[in-house]
C-alpha cells in the first residue's frame, strides 16, 4: 500500500464493522479478534488490486464473510479430526458474544446454535439482514447474487428456523 495513513484510515472506518460481523459469525471474542486481524492483513495486501466495481464497504464485508466461513470450516475439520463427532460441529462453539445482553444471553446462544446449523448461504443472508441490518440489494452485492436469490435464501432460512426453534 502506497500510504500507511490511508490504511489506518480504512481501519478506523471499518474495524468496528469487521469486528462485529466476525463476532456475529463466530460468536466468540477470541475468534473474532483473530478474524479481524486477518481480514485487515488481507485488506492491506489486496487494496492495490481493488477495483471500484463495488464499494470499499461491500468489498470488506465480502472479505470478512469469506474469512469467517474459512475459519468455521477449518475449526470443523479439526473437531472431526480429533473427536469424530460430526453432530458437534461449530454449532457447539463456546458462546461468548459481548454484544448480547446478559439476561437474554442464553436465548440468543440457543438461536445462534440453530442459525449455525443452517446451510452456509442462508446463514450469511440471515446474519447480514437480521443483525447487520443490510438492505437486500447490499446483501446481494456482498454475496454476488441477484436480489431475488437473496430473498429466496432469506425466506428459506426463516422457514428452516421456524421448524427447528
Amino acid at each position, binding site marked *: 500500500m502506497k500510504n500507511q495513513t490511508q490504511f*489506518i484510515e480504512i*481501519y478506523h472506518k471499518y*474495524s*468496528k464493522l469487521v*469486528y*462485529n460481523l466476525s*463476532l*456475529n459469525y463466530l460468536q466468540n471474542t477470541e475468534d473474532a*479478534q483473530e478474524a*479481524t*486481524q*486477518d481480514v*485487515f*492483513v488481507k485488506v*492491506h*495486501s489486496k487494496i492495490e488490486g481493488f477495483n471500484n466495481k463495488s464499494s470499499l464497504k461491500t468489498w470488506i464485508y465480502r472479505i470478512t464473510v469469506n474469512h469467517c466461513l474459512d475459519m468455521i470450516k477449518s475449526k470443523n475439520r479439526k473437531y472431526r479430526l480429533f473427536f469424530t463427532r460430526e453432530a458437534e460441529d461449530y454449532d457447539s462453539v463456546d458462546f461468548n*458474544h*459481548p*454484544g*448480547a*445482553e446478559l439476561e*437474554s444471553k442464553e*436465548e*440468543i446462544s440457543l*438461536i445462534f446454535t440453530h442459525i449455525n446449523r443452517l446451510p452456509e448461504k442462508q446463514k450469511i443472508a440471515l446474519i447480514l439482514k*437480521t*443483525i447487520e*441490518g443490510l438492505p437486500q440489494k447490499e446483501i446481494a452485492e456482498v454475496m454476488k447474487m441477484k436480489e431475488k436469490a437473496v430473498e429466496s435464501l432469506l425466506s428459506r432460512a*426463516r422457514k428452516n*428456523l*421456524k421448524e427447528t*426453534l
Partner: protein
Amino acid sequence: MEQGNLDKLSRIEPVSVPDFLLDRIKNKIETKQIVEKRNTNFLLAFALVLLIVNGGVLTTYSSDQDSKNTSQTINPYSISETIFTGYE
C-alpha cells in the same frame, strides 16, 4: 415465535474494537512482509545457483564435444597400420 427470536438478534448491540488490535495487525503485516521478502531472496538465490550450475554443465558439455571433435579429425597424411598389415 420465530420472528420474535429474530427480533432478539436485532437487539444485539455493536461492541467497540479492542485497542490492541491495530498494533497486532501492524505486527502481522510486518511479519508477512519480512517472510515474503525472505522467500523472494531465497527464490532469487536458488535461481542464481540453478543458473550457475546450468552454465557449468553447458560449458563442460561443449568443451567435451570440442575435444571429441578434435580427436575424431582424421589426418589425411597419417599412415594407417591396416595398410601395412595388408602386405604382410
